[in-house]
């Protein structure tokens, strides 16, 4: 694994770790025994880390969720499935690369897998449009949803998007109606739908793949009606207040679980998925396999009704 890019709030950790390295070198060079000092410092570093990562502020989680080395949809595909075959295109002119879909086995169960894809390099990010789909991406997903339904295959979606792309062409070909139709059609699907938000789950662009029987979030993922930057620039008149907006919007997995917006949280390694992708894959796979097994107990009618009831209950009302 290449060196992990450090986030601003992680600086204290890296500073301590640098110091430990320094002491080790000093010890080696000078022959002075610094073992106990190093041990103390290492312990302190561990404590500090735990404390930091277990008390992340919302905007710090967002930075982890957006980390350039965070596993992408295709990483999950590669590591939790077998027999993957990508199925391209909306059959109407476009193969939007920001939403990728296909068929594969998870723990021997064939499923249709659909996810938003981000890149790790500039070139990849341009190919995948930074994980921001056009309407044609949602239409590709819808085509594959219906394919899954015809062949009685469960659907798993993996979501990590800053939102649907706000562009001219996207308006022209119906960003709004494409998302709306996915919400509608997902409500009607006769097969189990499992959605996992692995990074950014922003706005209608995320929801367009997330009307599901079970919705999970990675521990450091966030799920929100608007990006904190967007919210801050409207309500605080300045995008720089994104951290405040992130607090106010209550975008973290624990709150959303508490409010029954999501059905479970998938553990991440300390510091975030990118510190131990393998562990993240295992954790995510286990949750999905369990959900698949649970949902396989329901018949078509039950799948539709429980999905409906879930969303019917969402809202915070008086009177």
């Amino acid at each position, binding site marked *: 694994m290449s060196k992990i890019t450090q986030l601003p709030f992680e600086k204290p950790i890296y500073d301590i770790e640098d110091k430990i390295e320094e002491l080790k070198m000093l010890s080696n060079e000078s022959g002075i025994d610094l073992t106990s000092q190093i041990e103390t410092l290492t312990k302190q570093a561990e404590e500090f880390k735990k404390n930091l990562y277990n008390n992340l502020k919302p905007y710090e989680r967002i930075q982890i969720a957006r980390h350039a080395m965070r596993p992408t949809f295709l990483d999950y595909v590669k590591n939790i499935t077998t027999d993957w075959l990508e199925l391209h295109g909306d059959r109407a002119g476009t193969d939007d690369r920001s939403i990728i879909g296909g068929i594969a086995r998870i723990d021997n169960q064939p499923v249709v897998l659909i996810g938003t894809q981000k890149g790790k390099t500039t070139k990849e990010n341009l190919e995948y449009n930074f994980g921001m789909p056009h309407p044609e991406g949602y239409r590709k997903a819808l085509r594959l949803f219906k394919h899954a339904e015809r062949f009685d295959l469960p659907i798993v979606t993996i979501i990590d998007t800053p939102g*649907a*792309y*706000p*562009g*001219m062409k*996207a*308006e*022209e*070909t*119906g*960003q*709004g*109606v494409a*998302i*709306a*139709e996915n*919400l*509608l059609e997902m*409500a*009607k699907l006769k097969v189990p739908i499992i959605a996992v938000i692995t990074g950014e789950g922003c*706005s*209608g662009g995320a*929801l*367009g793949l*997330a*009307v599901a029987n079970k919705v999970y979030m990675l521990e450091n993922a966030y*799920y*929100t*009606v*608007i990006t904190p930057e*967007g*919210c801050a620039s*409207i*309500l*605080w008149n300045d995008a720089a207040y994104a951290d*405040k*907006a992130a607090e*106010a*919007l*209550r*975008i973290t997995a624990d709150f*959303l679980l508490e*409010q029954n*917006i999501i059905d479970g949280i998938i553990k991440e390694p300390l510091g975030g998925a990118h510190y131990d992708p393998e562990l993240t894959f295992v954790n995510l796979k286990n949750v999905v396999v369990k959900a698949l097994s649970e949902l396989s107990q329901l018949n078509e009618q039950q799948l539709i009704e429980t*999905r*409906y009831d879930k*969303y*019917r209950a*969402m*809202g*915070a*009302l*008086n*009177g």
Partner: protein
Amino acid sequence: MGIKEWLHKKREQKNSSRTINTAVIDDEVGKLWTKCFNCGANLPAKEVEENLHVCTKCGYHFRINAKERIAQVVDLATFEEINADVVSADPLQFKDLKTYKSRQKDAFEKTKLNDSIITGIGKINGEKMAIAVMEFAYMGGSMGSVVGEKITRLIEIAIEKKLPVVIFTSSGGARMQEGIFSLMQMAKTSCAVAKLNKAKLLYITVLTEPTFGGVTASFGTLGDIIIAEQGARMGFAGRRVIEQTIRQKLPADFQTAQYFLKHGQVDMICSRDELKEVIANLVRLHSKNK
């Protein structure tokens, strides 16, 4: 003041204003003179109002509030409002520069509504239907828990009573102050439309100035028939956001009703004076034995 009383009062005013020269100035009825944003003409407010708030010189459609809309399209004395008292619980205890609570209070003062939508059952040109009208003046017509709940309940009643549904949208999008609860109303209303589809009941949406964001990306564009009111602008993302993203000026007609018609996203454009007849006609054309 409930809708019924308001309509009653309004009609009284209208009648009285016909005889009295010193017209009462009323926040809702408007000022004595109305300046047209489009052609600049200064017109007697009464003339504009009697013309459905459409400029008598150039046909410009002024934005109207939800009560005015109901007065215009629903047959006299047939509208029965439902669920007027549903209010948001402020689940996030949201606060930016102001609290959500204070914004709600201001919006209530301005509109005398508990949230940005009025729902009810009424007749349009004799056809009974479930009707929802969004109120842009209430926090930009934003969709939070109340909008989602009231639309869902309206659809459930429509299914129960086998009525067609017509919704007049006007919204800037999701209500940020309700965070994820706001986003979930997109799913919730779409699920309700799914049930309506299954019941094979006609669903008409009328996109009025302006309709954007979460409403465009959920129940707003799920109509079996989508009508855009003349002069309305609509879209998913806002014009400024797009211009910032693509670093390019957008054409003048971008996101107008005409643009959406040309790009296949609305079934038709209606001027305000056509709406009643077209809606009723659509209902009859989609009903057996009519």
